[in-house]
């Protein structure tokens, strides 16, 4: 077999192997992406293609206008939610992953921390909704036992978003922990032995050995959970319906969903989706750049 025909054959089988995935991408991703982009410049109720009306930048102009609630509070809420949940789940999962690696019954602990991640968000949202009940919820009972006054977590707009963020963070600990544990296990034992010989304590070992070597996992966890956080709205939908009180817990995904499927404003909804896409794109680029400067190879 000549070198030339060999390469040709790989070309053919390469695309053959890729064809199911690429066909899917063309149908359910590229086409919808373009369609959605087009819709974002139109006004349409979603029923009849003949009734699509081109409105140019009007949808975007409306969303960016001063009286629109989209930039603030909805988009700011979206970012707060993403930052908040990532911060909580990342810090907790790092601590948990680092600690349980040196404990007995490692598998048991890991299972317990992972349970929320296998549970449907519908269940999580409803359980916490009940736990946050201002009169007969578990959380207020706990506050009462600590001698604090009762709070109406989901009705008080200063607390509502934070209360949902706590649930989102709690929920995210499991999967982040798993990826970080995988990263921890990949660090060669010699490094720790060397550190021990040098007389480094637990904390020093973590700061100077574990964390730097863990960086690729950390980056993966941060980027994926941040992207996930920006998109997620099931929890909000289950816990506060349309994002109330007022718009206090409303996030971009939820608003888009209601605009499209309840009010029939498909154009506006598509424009919202693209604004959020732009945000996610920029944030991811920034995160990747920061980490690359930190000396971490990305996944290319």
């Amino acid at each position, binding site marked *: 077999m000549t070198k030339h025909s060999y390469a040709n054959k790989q070309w053919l089988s390469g695309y053959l192997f890729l064809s199911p995935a690429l066909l899917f991408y063309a149908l359910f991703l590229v086409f919808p992406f373009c369609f959605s982009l087009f819709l974002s410049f139109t006004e349409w*109720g*979603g*029923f*009849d293609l003949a009734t699509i009306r081109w409105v140019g930048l009007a949808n975007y102009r409306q969303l960016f206008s001063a*009286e629109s*609630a989209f930039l603030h509070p909805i988009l700011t809420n979206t970012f707060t939610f993403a930052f908040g949940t990532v911060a909580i789940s990342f810090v907790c999962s790092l601590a948990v992953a680092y600690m349980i690696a040196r404990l007995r019954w490692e598998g048991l602990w890991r299972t317990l921390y992972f349970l929320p991640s296998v549970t449907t968000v519908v269940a999580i949202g409803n359980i916490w909704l009940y736990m946050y*009940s*201002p*009169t007969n919820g578990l959380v*207020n009972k706990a506050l*009462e036992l600590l001698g*604090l*006054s*009762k*709070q*109406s*977590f989901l*009705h*008080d*707009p*200063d607390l509502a978003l934070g209360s949902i963020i706590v649930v989102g963070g709690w929920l995210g600990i499991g999967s982040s922990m798993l990826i970080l544990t995988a990263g921890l296990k990949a660090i060669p034992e010699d490094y720790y032995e060397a550190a021990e010989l040098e007389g480094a304590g637990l904390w020093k070992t973590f700061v100077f050995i574990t964390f730097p070597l863990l960086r690729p996992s950390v980056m993966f966890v941060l980027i994926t959970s941040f992207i996930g956080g920006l998109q997620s709205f099931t929890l909000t939908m289950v816990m506060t*319906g*349309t994002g*109330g*009180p*007022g*718009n*206090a817990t409303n996030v971009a995904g939820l608003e888009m969903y209601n605009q499209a*499927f*309840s*009010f*029939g404003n498909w154009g506006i909804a598509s424009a919202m989706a693209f604004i959020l896409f732009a945000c996610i794109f920029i944030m991811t680029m920034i995160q990747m750049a920061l980490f690359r400067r930190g000396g971490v190879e990305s996944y290319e």
Partner: protein
Amino acid sequence: MKKRMALTLLALLTIVMAACSSSGGADSPGTDSGESGSGKTAQKPVTLTLLSHYVGQNEVAFKPYIDQWNSENPDIQIKLTPVDFGELLRTIMTKQTAGQAPDLMHIYTLWGGQLAKNNVLAFAPDDVAADIEANYPASAVAASSIDGRVYGYPTEVQAYGLFYNKKLLQEAGYGGPPKTWDELIEMAQHIERDDGSGMPSVQGFGFLRGYAGKVVQPFMALMATAGGTLLTDDMSAAALDTEAAKRTIDLYAKVYGKDGITDIGFPTQQAFGSGKAAMTIEAGWWAGSLKTLMKDGYADIGAAPLPSPDGLTQGSLAYTWAWSVNAKSKHQEEAWKFLKWFNTQKVKNDMTPQGNFLLEGFNVISTRASDMESETIKRKLEEDPVTKVFADALQYARPEQNPAAAAEIQDALFKQIENMWADKATKEEALAAAQKEIQAKLGK
């Protein structure tokens, strides 16, 4: 261990293939709308799909009448599609997009404008329209019309009133419910009790909350007692810059928020059902719910017309549901035939199927003239003072205005009121912002 995993995977794949092929089989046309689509000739039996929010217990009460129709009319069969109220509008919208338009729909008339704009609603034939205009209260007819053209039979027409707990009022030394807004606030403050935990143990007065309609409808009802409406009469402009609107938002600001008389987190709806809240505002249907929930405790519940600023003006808001026919339906004639029977034919107790169903299912009285004159309803009103309060309110209640953006408009006002309660905006700011937003949505 690897072997076991391989086996598991193989088993998994087999199941999948089976699942895929069986789900592929479900692909063939065989759904009911498919059947109705093919039955073009008059002789062939037609199946009409009916979409409503009558689920659970309501469905149980509703079904016998549908069964009766189906057995008497083998040519026109009705198939029920019940969904929860919270999903109804979305279901109508998505089904329409999907080409699965239900032939018959029970809709909340607030959505009338939006649905008409998207060509979902068929207008009533002339004889039906004439019958409706002659036999229902003016506010219900107005709500079931778009630009003066009737599109459906009014069904649940519900006015708002004040619910109160006689026992809690008596314990605080009050013989009867408040007549004016000032009395309402004053009495509420007297009745309110706090156990020091940060949450009231007994609430004097609270609004029910949860979704837009729950907050905005009482707002419009109270605004009516102050002589105002949300939009101008021709629905072309927002009317939140009026004196009535200012007085109403003032009342709202007195209930929750930093100057509020009670805590917004207190679950008024639940608490009222367990005798821990003294007064709230809700529509008449709630009496039926409370009866089921409270059992003997229901004897303590009273109802009264809404208090007004001057204690003299009567005012309320009535919302309306209506039976309507889909403009995309291929069997509109048959659909109207069914609706005529369901809404006008006396079948038992000297009432229409609709009249019987409302009474059995919700403890609510039908607003059709012939039903209201029936012995059953007359007796009911004599026996049940709570129901009577709400029936009387229908006479003076205003209809809910339904421009195309009605649902969005209520949403805008709802969010502004909640912002104000949350101290994110003063009452003046909230009202001005709502006025501006509503105006923008009307202009679209």
